[in-house]
C-alpha cells in the first residue's frame, strides 16, 4: 500500500518494542463485541491508475462550464485563474502546513494572512478583517450573531436582495440562539423599503451588493438610519470582483462587510470550498469571530507575525467564545490573496471593467429577444430577466443544447409563482462574443 511506509519487518520490530504480539492487541481497549461486530462489505485497495479511471468516469458525467457557454452566478462565479496561482497554492509548504500555531516556522502562512487581511480591508473599505470564514453564507450568520453581541439586541432584518442561502444559513443559526430573524420577500426589482423598518429593537440590517437579482444600491442612507437607531448595517458581497468598479460598503457606512472570495480564488467546484470574507470597524474588533494575524517582533528585533487576540476564540474562551470556528479556509484565502496581488490595483479595476462591459453587452443582446425583458436598475456583472415562459424549463432546454444559460429564480423561491419566469444571468470575462451570440440565439428559439 503506497501510502503506508511500514514494512512487515518494521511492524514486527515495533510490536516487540511495544510489548504486544499483534496490531489487533493494540485495540484491546475497544469492547470485544463491538470489534467483532465490525464487518465491512467494501472494496479493497486500488492503484493510482484505477482510482483515476474511477474518478474520471464520474467527472465525465458532468457538463463542465469549460465545455459550454455558461452564464451562471448567484454567488458563485467563473473567472480566469492565472497559471501561477494554482502553481503557488500547490506548493507543499502552503498546501500541507497546519494552522500556524508555531509562528517561528509558519511565517510564510502568517505573512500571507496579514497581507490577505489588509487586502480585504482595502477592497471593502473597512478597517480590520479576519483570516477567513468557511464561506459567504456562514460569514453572514457570524456577522448577524456578532451584531447581536455588539448591540445586545435579539432581532435581525434580512433584505429580500440577500442571497437565499445566506438568508437560510443565517436564519437557521439564529433560530437556535433565540434571535428573531425577519427575512423580507424576494426583491427582484430592488425597491423594498428597509429604512422604514429600522427600529430601536433591531440589532442589524443585512443587505447585499450587488443584490441577489443583480442590483446595485447605495446603502448610505440606510447606514445612517441604522446608526440613528443603534443598529449595525451588514453588507454582503458575494462577488468581490465588483469592488474593482463599484463603491465599496465601507464608503457607505457599513459596520460589517462579509462576502465570499471564491470568484477570485478558486474554480466553482460545485460551490465548495469557498472562502468567507469578514471585515469590520476597529471598535468592534473584540467581538469579531475567527483568527487574526498581527505584527510583532522576535527576540532579535526582527519583524514577524503571530496569531493574536485569540482569547476571543474557542480554544481559550470555550463556551464564551465569539464563535466555534477552528479550521477556516486558509488555502482559499491564500489563493484569493495571490490573485489580487497578481492583478494589483490596475488589473483589479480592469477585470471589473471587463466584467461589466461583458454583462452590458449580454443584456443588450437579450433585450433584443421578443418577450425577454431585462429588469430595470444598475448592475455589475449579473442581472435578472423575465421570460415569456417558465425559466426552469428554458434553462433545461438550453442545457440540452449545451448552454448553461443562467439560474432560474424558482430554484431558490419555489413557493413564489410570480418568480417562475425570472432568470438570473451573469457574464464574466470568460464569456466571448460567440458565447453570447449562441446563448441569445438559442434563447430566442426557445421562447418564441
Amino acid at each position, binding site marked *: 500500500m503506497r501510502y503506508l511506509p511500514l514494512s512487515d519487518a518494521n511492524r514486527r520490530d515495533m510490536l516487540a518494542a511495544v510489548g504486544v504480539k499483534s496490531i489487533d492487541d493494540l485495540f484491546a481497549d475497544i469492547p470485544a463485541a463491538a470489534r467483532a461486530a465490525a464487518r465491512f462489505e467494501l472494496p479493497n485497495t486500488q492503484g493510482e491508475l484505477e482510482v483515476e479511471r474511477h474518478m474520471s468516469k464520474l467527472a465525465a458525467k458532468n457538463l463542465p462550464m469549460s465545455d459550454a457557454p455558461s452564464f451562471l452566478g448567484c454567488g458563485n462565479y467563473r473567472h480566469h485563474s492565472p497559471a501561477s496561482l494554482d502553481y503557488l497554492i500547490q506548493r507543499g509548504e502552503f498546501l500541507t502546513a497546519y494552522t500556524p500555531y508555531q509562528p517561528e516556522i509558519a511565517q510564510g502562512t502568517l505573512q500571507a494572512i496579514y497581507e490577505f487581511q489588509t487586502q480585504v480591508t482595502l477592497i471593502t473599505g473597512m478597517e480590520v478583517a479576519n483570516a477567513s470564514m468557511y464561506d459567504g453564507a456562514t460569514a453572514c450568520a457570524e456577522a448577524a450573531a456578532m451584531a447581536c453581541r455588539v448591540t445586545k439586541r435579539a432581532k435581525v432584518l434580512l433584505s429580500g436582495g440577500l442571497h437565499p442561502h445566506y438568508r437560510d444559513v443565517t436564519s437557521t443559526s439564529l433560530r437556535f440562539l433565540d434571535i428573531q430573524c425577519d427575512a423580507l420577500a424576494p426583491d427582484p426589482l430592488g425597491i423594498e423599503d428597509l429604512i422604514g423598518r429600522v427600529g430601536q429593537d433591531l440589532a442589524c440590517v443585512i443587505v447585499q451588493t450587488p443584490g441577489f437579482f443583480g442590483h446595485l444600491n447605495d446603502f448610505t442612507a440606510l447606514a445612517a438610519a441604522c446608526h440613528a437607531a443603534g443598529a449595525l448595517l451588514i453588507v454582503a458581497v458575494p462577488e468581490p470582483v465588483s469592488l474593482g468598479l463599484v463603491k465599496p460598503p465601507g464608503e457607505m457606512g457599513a459596520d460589517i462587510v462579509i462576502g465570499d472570495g471564491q470568484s477570485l480564488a478558486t474554480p466553482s467546484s460545485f460551490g465548495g470550498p469557498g472562502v468567507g470574507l469578514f471585515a469590520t470597524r476597529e471598535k468592534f474588533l*473584540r467581538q469579531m469571530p475567527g483568527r487574526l494575524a498581527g505584527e510583532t517582533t522576535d527576540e532579535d528585533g526582527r519583524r514577524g507575525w503571530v496569531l493574536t487576540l*485569540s*482569547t476571543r476564540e474557542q480554544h*481559550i*474562551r470555550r463556551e*464564551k467564545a465569539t464563535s466555534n470556528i477552528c479550521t477556516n479556509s486558509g488555502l482559499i484565502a491564500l489563493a484569493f490573496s495571490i490573485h489580487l496581488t497578481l492583478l494589483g490595483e490596475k488589473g483589479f479595476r480592469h477585470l471589473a471593467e471587463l466584467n461589466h462591459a461583458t454583462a452590458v453587452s449580454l443584456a443588450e443582446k437579450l433585450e433584443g429577444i421578443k418577450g425577454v425583458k431585462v429588469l430595470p436598475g444598475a448592475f455589475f456583472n449579473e442581472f435578472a430577466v423575465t421570460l415569456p415562459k417558465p425559466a426552469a424549463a428554458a434553462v433545461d432546454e438550453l442545457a440540452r443544447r449545451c448552454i448553461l444559460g443562467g439560474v432560474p429564480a424558482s430554484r431558490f423561491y419555489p413557493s413564489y409563482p410570480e418568480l417562475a419566469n425570472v432568470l438570473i444571468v451573469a457574464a464574466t470575462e470568460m464569456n466571448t462574443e460567440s458565447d453570447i451570440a449562441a446563448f441569445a440565439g438559442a434563447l430566442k428559439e426557445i421562447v418564441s
Partner: protein
Amino acid sequence: MSQLRFTKDHEWIRVDGGVAVVGITDYAQSQLGDIVFVEVPAKGKALKAGGEAAVVESVKAASEVYAPITGEVVEGNVALPDAPETVNQDAQGAGWFFKMTLGSPSELDGLMDQAAYDKYLAELKA
C-alpha cells in the same frame, strides 16, 4: 483606609471613604502572565456580589473579574485599557479596576482578610 479583603476568585477590595476600590490580587496577575487587555465597567453599572464586573486577558487566558460585593460602579480605571501592563506592575495599587458603592456593607464580612487569603493561597500552591 480600611484593610484589604479578598475573594476566592482573587479579587481584592478596600473601602476608602465610603467607596470600595476593587482589583485583582498580585497572585492573580502572576498566574495570568503578561496582561494584554482589560475592560472596566462604566460608571453607573449595577453590580451584584459574585456577578461579572470586568474582563482581564493575557495572551493565553481570559478571565472575568467578579464584583466582591453588591453595589454600583462609581468609576472605572480608564487608564487601564491603554496600559494593561499596570496590572502586572502594581496589581494592588495603580492596577485597580473600578470603584463601587457599598450596597450592602455586611457582605464584606464574608470575605477573607489578609491572613485568611495567605492561608488560602498556601493551600492552593500545596
